[in-house]
């Protein structure tokens, strides 16, 4: 029920997203048909494209066509590869997803304990380290961090592999089940490939994680400080409850609520930073697809990319809302 209600509130947002992406496809200066036909097109080809993509009809009709095509999963065709955009996006999705999920995991695994430790020992070196990481982390341009990491760990120290994508030239991808190399290689029992894939993943995931770790650590620290200073913690201490219970069951569970909300911002950033990180590390995911298309003035993939990322973001926010509702009974029960 709650799921349905949340879905219902997401519908107007999705509608807005579709309208905006439609407008973006029609906002190109000049004749859109020329863009979609490509630079080498003849007059006749342009006319054909114009008719096929419906540019010669009125705007509302075009919108309706757009909706129809979306309903069939048709996001157009890429000029440079000649493939349907939808297929290419879906093929590349696992690469980006694997990267983002690992980055999220790294980020949370570092930021949350750091924030808790900083809150429990105010004024200590841990606290100061947390403050520095928090302020510096949000100032680091993602693409720059990536390059720095490559320089230090690949060029200087030689411990990281070359930033050439998901796997080294000599390794081959494991048999496809999920598209996630880490999972697929484990499923096939192939530890060599697993290690190789992981080695390639570490630097790009770390690059993304460094940026998102900052707001997460900051919010965790602030939320824990707030929770630890609150009246119900005083009651818990006065009842003689064991320290770890007070900190983790009582304080942390309350502090985790604003952290969950911050994840929304983290996802927004990750979906964008995806583009930058994939360019630096030659990662064959959604971001690099969009960038290559952009440089080649191939617009259908770019628009498909924007739409897909937006829908992914709406979906992720929905998940965050639901998780929040699970943790906070006040939201669940007052609904």
């Amino acid at each position, binding site marked *: 029920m709650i799921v349905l209600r949340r879905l219902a509130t997401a519908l107007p947002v999705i509608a807005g997203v579709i309208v905006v992406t439609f407008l*973006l496809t029609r906002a190109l200066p000049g004749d859109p048909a020329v863009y979609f036909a490509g630079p080498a097109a003849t007059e006749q080809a342009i006319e054909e494209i114009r008719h096929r993509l419906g540019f010669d009809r009125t705007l509302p009709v075009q919108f309706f066509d757009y909706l129809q095509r979306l309903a069939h999963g048709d996001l157009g065709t890429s000029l440079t590869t000649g493939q349907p955009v939808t297929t290419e996006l879906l093929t590349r999705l696992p690469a980006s997803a694997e990267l983002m999920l690992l980055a999220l995991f790294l980020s949370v695994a570092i930021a949350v304990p750091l924030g808790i430790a900083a809150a429990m020992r105010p004024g200590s070196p841990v606290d100061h380290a947390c403050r520095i990481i928090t302020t510096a982390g949000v100032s680091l*341009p993602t693409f720059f961090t990536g390059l720095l990491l490559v320089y230090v760990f690949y060029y200087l120290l030689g411990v990281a592999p070359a930033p050439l994508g998901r796997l080294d030239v000599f390794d081959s991808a494991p048999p496809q089940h999920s598209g996630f190399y880490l999972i697929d290689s484990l499923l096939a029992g192939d530890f060599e490939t697993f290690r190789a894939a992981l080695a390639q993943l570490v630097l790009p995931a770390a690059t993304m994680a460094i940026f998102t770790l900052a707001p997460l650590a900051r919010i965790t620290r602030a939320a824990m400080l707030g929770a630890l200073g609150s009246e119900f913690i005083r009651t818990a201490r006065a009842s003689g409850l064991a320290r770890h219970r007070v900190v983790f069951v009582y304080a942390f569970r309350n502090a985790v609520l604003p952290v969950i909300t911050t994840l929304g911002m983290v996802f927004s950033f990750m979906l*964008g930073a995806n583009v930058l990180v994939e360019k630096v590390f030659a990662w064959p995911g959604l971001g690099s697809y969009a960038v290559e298309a952009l440089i080649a003035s191939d617009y259908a993939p*770019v628009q498909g990319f924007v739409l897909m990322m937006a829908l992914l973001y709406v979906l992720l926010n929905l998940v965050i809302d639901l998780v929040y509702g699970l943790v906070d009974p006040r939201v669940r029960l007052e609904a």
Partner: protein
Amino acid sequence: MTATLRHARYVLSENPVTAFAFALFFLLALCAALGPALAPFDPLASDTAEALTGPSAVHWFGTDQLGRDIFSRIVVATRLDLGIAVTSVALAFGIGTLLGLAAGYCGGWIDRIVGRAVDTIMAFPLFVLAMGIVAALGNNVANIVYATAIINLPIYARLSRSEANVRRNAGFVEAARLCGNGEARIVLAQLLPNIMPLMMVQVSLTLGYAILNAAGLSFIGLGVRPPTAEWGIMVAEGASFIVSGEWWVAFFPGIVLMSAVFCFNLMGDGLRDIVDPLRRT
């Protein structure tokens, strides 16, 4: 007013880091203002004999693949980067604040429309939306400014809306109304000055974000074209040399970029401490 200044001075003295940020800001502003006059070399002059030389007494930050002096290019780029950031934030602030004030103060259908527009913008991952807008409108610097302005608009709209909402029935607003002031005048002359301190904090923080955004867009090849000097595109040009060890081509523009963003973030934090210490985290 002097009480604020005194408090400001107290905060700055307690927090040397914040004072440092303000100093750095002045340095950047100076570079932006004086630009080419400060550059020892012509940022566009290429000298292939000197290509890819490391930092030295002559070329403080080394030279790039076309033999151009990196230090000069960075100094000149300051004007462009700060210009893009300031213009887009000014647009976002101006339009966003007015829309938000109108929405929060008047309520009704204005509120609903503005709310819907803002929610729609925020439904996108912001960098992706900026990419989409630049791709749609055309690949040039002006569109980078517009795209960055659009994605930063919601923050101002929401902030001014909630502040206006809280204050719209406050005593001083009622008093102004009773004195016969028109609604528009109340919004501009009474509400706006009241929320300015908070908005200024937000402006400083957004400036940092706007610089990162613009640099990110130019890193992937949008907006700025070679041979223009801009921090993001310089990092992009230097990226291919990292794996062969010529680190300075990407490093110095990146460090300067990072320092500028850091500076604005620290200033924003410092301003927040001056304006509203309760919101400190």
